[in-house]
């Protein structure tokens, strides 16, 4: 385990750099150019990147470390959102109480669900969590309509009490803030043809994500994390040695539930609305996809996976027929129409298809997810450079290649 600390610190610094400069990194194309379509550096999407990053990091603590595949994590996200919006309605538009409550409520919720579900493992555990999540969804959707406002979603209204903010009906809807900094506040920097949006909401989410990322590194490297990995590799053997593994798995479940609740609370803080569909099984499935796509059990993988999926959902889905015709306008009419007809099913509302294909490719050829892809590319690049280097370095390269070979 030598050098772990230094490596993790570097990883943390890299992630910090990426998140802090994301508004610039994600807007590589000049505004107004044809390629601006692919820019992802607008506040809403960047917020989604980091918030779903938090969600996936939390999920990975459970799935990546213990191997318990929960299919109901969206329930915690939804519960977090509802708690946060209620906090905005009743107490204050400040995001702190909302986020705190959402984490606490999601934690309690996870404790109850985890306590029951963790009596089983494997597929039975997955089914139990799925059942609980669908139950929560249906409750939120119809039975608990007075609390959740059903399909319409819970929203702020002008005559909410908002006790700490002075109360009284407002003339316009108040905005979520952090001690006066409005979440939707953003500054646009223009530099030549480029423009970059720096938004308060994004930076708050990004800082919280970094904190979560750091916490997850600490958990991964702690004795507790080692215990969770032991659960994954052979729980039975562990139990035979007289060790009760359930407190560990329950703790992991609650921690990841709290991460999800935090993500839900943040989502509501950025946009004060909570809808029942946040708890649907598709939403639970999405975080599983994110984690597997990025690389389950790796530190950075889930964040990459979350970004990848959200990018597809928001950018690819907006490419419509008109945009395609714009791209292929140079071609002769017949070929243009043909190309549009070929590409069209894969973009716009067909983005799921593209994502599905990519997911298949990743699972088949890169079982370790995007992280493994990055590793292979890195190894390829380094090997070529190393070949040119002198004999001393090439032996180091061999060693490096050997040590990075997949263990199983």
């Amino acid at each position, binding site marked *: 385990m030598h050098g772990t600390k230094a490596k993790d610190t570097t990883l943390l610094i890299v992630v910090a750099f990426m998140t802090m400069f994301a508004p610039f990194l994600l807007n590589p194309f000049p505004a107004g150019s044809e390629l601006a379509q692919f820019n992802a550096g607008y506040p809403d999407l960047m917020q989604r990147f980091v918030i779903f990053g938090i969600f996936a990091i939390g999920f990975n603590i459970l799935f990546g470390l213990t191997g318990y595949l929960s299919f109901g994590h969206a329930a915690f996200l939804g519960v977090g959102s509802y708690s946060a919006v209620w906090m905005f309605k009743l107490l204050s538009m400040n995001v702190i109480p909302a986020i705190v409550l959402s984490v606490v409520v999601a934690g309690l919720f996870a404790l109850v669900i985890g306590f029951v579900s963790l009596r089983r493992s494997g597929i039975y555990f997955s089914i139990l969590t799925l059942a609980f999540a669908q139950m929560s969804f249906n409750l939120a959707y119809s039975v608990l309509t007075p609390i959740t406002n059903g399909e*319409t979603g819970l929203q702020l209204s002008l005559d909410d009490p908002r006790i700490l903010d002075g109360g009284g009906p407002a003339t316009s809807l108040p905005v979520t803030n952090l001690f006066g900094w409005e979440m939707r506040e953003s500054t646009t920097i223009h530099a030549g043809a480029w423009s970059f949006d720096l938004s308060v909401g994004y930076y708050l989410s990004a800082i919280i994500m970094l904190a979560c990322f750091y916490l997850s590194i600490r958990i991964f490297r702690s004795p507790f994390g080692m215990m969770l990995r032991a659960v994954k590799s052979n729980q039975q053997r562990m139990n035979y040695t007289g060790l009760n593994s359930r407190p560990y798995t329950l703790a992991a479940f609650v921690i990841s539930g709290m991460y999800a609740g935090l993500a839900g609370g943040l989502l509501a803080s950025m946009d004060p609305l909570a809808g029942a569909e946040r708890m649907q099984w598709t939403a639970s499935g999405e975080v599983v996809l994110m984690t597997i796509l990025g690389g389950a059990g790796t530190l950075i993988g889930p964040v990459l996976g979350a970004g990848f999926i959200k990018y597809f959902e928001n950018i690819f889905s907006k490419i419509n027929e008109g945009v395609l015709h714009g791209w292929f306008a140079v071609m002769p009419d017949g070929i243009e129409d043909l190309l549009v007809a070929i590409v069209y099913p894969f973009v716009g509302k067909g983005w799921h298809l593209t994502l599905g294909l990519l997911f298949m490719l990743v699972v088949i050829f890169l079982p370790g997810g995007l992280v493994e892809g990055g*590793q292979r590319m890195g190894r390829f690049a380094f090997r070529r450079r190393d070949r040119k280097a002198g004999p001393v370095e090439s032996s180091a390269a061999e060693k490096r290649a050997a040590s990075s070979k997949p263990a199983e």
Partner: protein
Amino acid sequence: MRRVRNGRNYMTKSNFTRRGLLKTSAGAGAGLALPTVFTGAVWAEKHTGFTNAPQGDTVTLGFNVPQSGPYADEGADELRAFRLAVEHLNGEGDGGMLNTFSSKALEGNGILGKKVDFVTGDTQTKSDAARASAKSMIEKDGAIMISGGSSSGVAVAVQGLCQEAGVIFMAGLTHSNDTTGKDKKANGFRHFFNAYMSAAALAPVLEKLYGADRNAYHLTADYTWGWTQEESIAAATEALGWNTVEKVRTPLAATDFSSYIAPVLNSGADVLVLNHYGGNMVNSLTNAVQFGLRSKQANGKQFEIVVPLYSELMARGAGQNIAGIPGSQNWDWKLENQMGDRYTGTNAFVQSFGTKYGFPPSQAAHTCYAQTLLYADAVTRAGSFNPCAVVEALEGFEFDGLGNGPTLYRADDHQCFKDVVVVRGKENPENEFDLVEIVEVTPAEQVTYPADHEMFAGGSLGECNPGA
């Protein structure tokens, strides 16, 4: 031993990623360093005091419609109408209802001389997805107005977002009382009629058709629109002397309604009210017919089905099952031909829509087209894209020639008041577009209600928000 190796493996994984990331980010950083040279002039952008003030010679509108889910058919037709409206605003095509519109401010040179551009998005008939899509239109594409929507839940959610962001929301197909009732917003406007108006127009016709002594069973889509329509219809029919036996809520995403239809048979009801729309209604009506409800006798009377909110698209989906079933519409493409010149504009719109797409437009298409024109006209009359100026221009605006006869945009709640069309499914349709026959047109006065009516109470417009 194995476990330790596993642990080391995690380290190396992160090691390589880190390098990869470092390289990419360093590269991207270097590329970005070049243009990041700020000058005073660039900082002082042409800010005109409201969100997404159009720069340059184009203006961007955002059309946010359901392209998947139970209302996808309506969404597709709305999108066609939006494309047509943009064409007409930019002076292409035959001009459609621009020629019949009572306000002559629009000249077919875009809006205030700026060419109209548009972006589209998929609401998925989910509030969350709709808001994300609208947000990206506002934040990324710089849309100054958002329109569309085929679900009131979505419309209410997006209207709230537009209010916060400081852009105008021109609601498309949304029929819930709440959109201009308890959830009304200063930046939001609705041309489409609502559940209260449907009930007010439908009740006299129902009395004429089925008498004043009936037992009604409601199946209701479980969200804001269903709730308010159920409330409105129940109130209006109970005023006739009808009895409401049962109100059952069904999930919006449901596709099979057999389990909801079966209990109707033995409930003692003799009328089934389907507060369903789009794909929901097509499925529930089909189920109801399969269960033999329409040929059934109950309480010594013929069993009847009522679909308060109707549309051509639904009629097409439901096919033969729709014959004879009454309902209400905001507009119908045969209106001018059958009801005369009062509804001028209808034929002009049907003509240009038909020429472009090969079939007549639905009411969803009509309301979206009208909303786009109304927005463009308001901007032109106000001389500014500023949302507050647009709100002022639309409030209390009286117009004609958009197919519905004389219409008022009421200032108190931003709801349009116009005639309501009561229709029935045709017994022997001549072709697949002629499935609906107009029973009567209820004049606007008969469906007008005070702005503080109890079904619309509980909200307030607030103040118009021009945003940043």
